[in-house]
């Protein structure tokens, strides 16, 4: 059996319009903007405190509205990956 996905309360987004637009989106839809993802231009890290930290189901509701915002080019709820030390 393949292991089922575990969804976290973190989102990755590609936003057109830079940091200011990312801040506006976070505020409008109730997220905390944790900033740009590393050195990937236009990619931002959002966090939602009122969503389950780990869930077997993808979140919907307001998260759907976020994905529909015209300034959001791509959005992905983050899955928890199993990583092991070698």
């Amino acid at each position: 059996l393949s292991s089922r996905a575990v969804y976290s309360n973190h989102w990755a987004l590609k936003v057109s319009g830079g940091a200011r637009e990312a801040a506006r989106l976070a505020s409008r839809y109730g997220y905390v903007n944790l900033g740009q993802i590393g050195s990937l231009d236009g990619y931002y890290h959002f966090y939602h405190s009122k969503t389950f930290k780990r869930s077997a189901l993808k979140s919907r509701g307001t998260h759907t509205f976020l994905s529909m915002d015209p300034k959001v080019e791509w959005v992905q709820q983050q899955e928890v990956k199993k990583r092991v030390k070698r």
Partner: protein
Amino acid sequence: HTWTEPHFMNFSDLMWPSMWYLHCSDKNHRCRSEMNVLAAWHRGYTGKNVVVTILDDGVEKNHPDLVQNYDPLASYDVNGGDDDPTPRYDISNENKHGTRCAGQVAAYANNSHCVVGIAYNAKIGGIRMLDGDVTDIVEAKSLGIRPDHIDIYSVSWGPDDDGRTVDGPGPLAKAAFEQGIRKGRNGLGSIYVWASGNGGREGDYCSCDGYTNSIYTISVSSTTENGNKPWYLEECASTLATTYSSGAFYERKIVTTDLRQRCTDAHTGTSASAPIVAGIIALALEANPHLTWRDVQHLIVKTSRPTHLKAPDWKINGAGRRVSHLYGFGLVDAEGMVLEARKWKTAPAQHVCTATSDRKHRFIRAAQPVQMSTLTDACADSFDQHVAYLEHVVVKLSIQHPRRGDLQIYLTSPSGTKSQLLARRAYDLSSEGYENWEFMTVHCWGEKAQGEWTLEIHDNSSLLRIPEMQGKLKEWTLILYGTAKPPFSTLNPHHSQSKVQESGMDMEASRAALYQSHLELTEEEEDYLGPCHPECGDQGCDGPGADQCLNCVHFSLGSAKSGRKCVSMCPPGFLADTVARRCKRCHKGCEACLGRSQNQCTSCKKGWFLHQEANTCGTVCPAGFYADEGLKHCLKCHQNCKQCIGSAEKCTACKDRFSLAGAMCIQECDQSMYLSLETMKCEACHPTCQTCTGPGKDECIYCAKDFHLHEWKCVPACSEGFYAEEVPGLPHKACRRCEENCLSCEGSGRNCVRCREGFNLLSGSCVTNHTCVNADETFCEMVKINLLCERKLFIHFCCQTCLLAG
């Protein structure tokens, strides 16, 4: 093997005497200093001004062996969101991993503490990212922290090595890799060193780990003190090189720093190997800070050596380099790396050529391999895509399969180098298959890209499976990475001129060939005074290896571009030219040959078959021949067969005027004739038959003209109680029985003309002549109104009585 220590150094560090993989202080053990780290140190390279970070569970920054080299700018805590990578301490010391890896790279030397790091003057940092939920964001952030400050990212983790996981970087981590190699190190490219995997015991294969299988990572495997395969080693074609780590219980492990300011001599696993390579790369970067991420991979390929490493699959690729699925190009050589780095000229731009993209669906049947070949010019017409000299080769596959672990995949290059992209994984029962999975091989590094590539997919079922459930190849794409020009020049004009003059025109062929490949090494190097390899000839050598001879006792093998070495006999696929004392490559597919032409093969390599009449080797046999796997020959099919498979008698297509019966081709006979299996001649059918299977009158297939088929015989007229009827699809009529109680009928069964005794003829049917006792007027009225006497089912229903009654 060396028993002496030419570059002896001593340090005050307590565990320095136990660092068996660096020097030989223990006279009871064989020296294992083949990584030549001391020699690199001796040349002055200790990792100065090079920055390494460890992506792991944190680094104990105040460890006495690390504090002096600790670099806060090379550190970050992704789990905690701050700059301090200090591990979380617990009773089990779970988070010791990063600190152990850091010590291997950059433990400070001569401080009377634990050990000496491979790059003991390099800057070391830690990125704490494994002590929490790992997501694509966490990985992408970690792989892209301060890419202009950090030179080397050393990573010793990955997806589960349980033999059933197929997982790799998500879109953000992939983007981080691409960004790192394009923009990191101010455009030279970040260097990612990766532990190849720890799932040997679970039958895992590292091509199922998308990180270690990536072209952007330097995938490192491990060997034990005695050159054996450790229990945890995963094989795959993307492993670039190997280093010592731990092994069996009677072989020594790696010594390094440990959590809580301690030291350990029990570090084990592939993570003991990757940081060693990270340290050696740090030495090379000190020797030449302008090396790009690809230059580093070229240097590793060029300098790593099989030494004494035991693997069943060592082979020489088309560029003359020995490579294995266990160890890549072999044990890393620190001195070789710094020497090559010093004079390395940046490799030409990387070109990417999509050689083929095939979306034709093909079923993968159990025990019947699917083989596809594609001929490519390696984008020769496109100046920015042309790949003449190979680096990485990627095959992107989409496969549906009921049990993924049963699959095995191989790729053969135009030079005949066969690498295994996937081995059987007994624990992988998944039915998810592979969706656009990229399998990567480094085994063709340096070879020419142009020519025929062959992909083979085997489905070797280990357990019972529903036979109807077959795998299906949906798509495959071959992507070639490399350069249009040679990645390094093999000829130094200054040296070539002087050396050639010195040697004169009559320099023997083997020496000339070897000479050319070593011209580049002569620059800046001291004369070698040690013993030469036994295969070296009277001209001496530049070093102890068989690839460092100036001429050979027996034969030289390889090419000027890729380097040559001396061998006692030529390997399969080569012709021993005793005059020139060279191994000449036979034509592709030939195992032994009389010359280099296509039609001079005397035997063929595995998977190729000798056409004895043409003396050629092919992967498929021509029409009229079949491939004999045992003999590796194309043998003739039976004279009646046009094509056959497996043996001469197993025909799959027949010549004209023969037709296939099972696996035999039998002669087709004229009409009214049949093939006699006794005489194997066509003989006449019985006169009543048009076609037949034998001479008897009951062996007709079709009847002759004006004959009807009656009880499997052909008769001129049907017997009494039968009538002749047309049958769709038959050229003649067949006799059918008349209706029950009817003695004779005409044209159809319902048209009876004579009934059995006790029955009367009524509207072509035979009805009983018995009368009903209770058929009163009302009853007969009901029979009349409902027309029961006209309906076959009710014809016996007192019709006779009612008719008689009027």
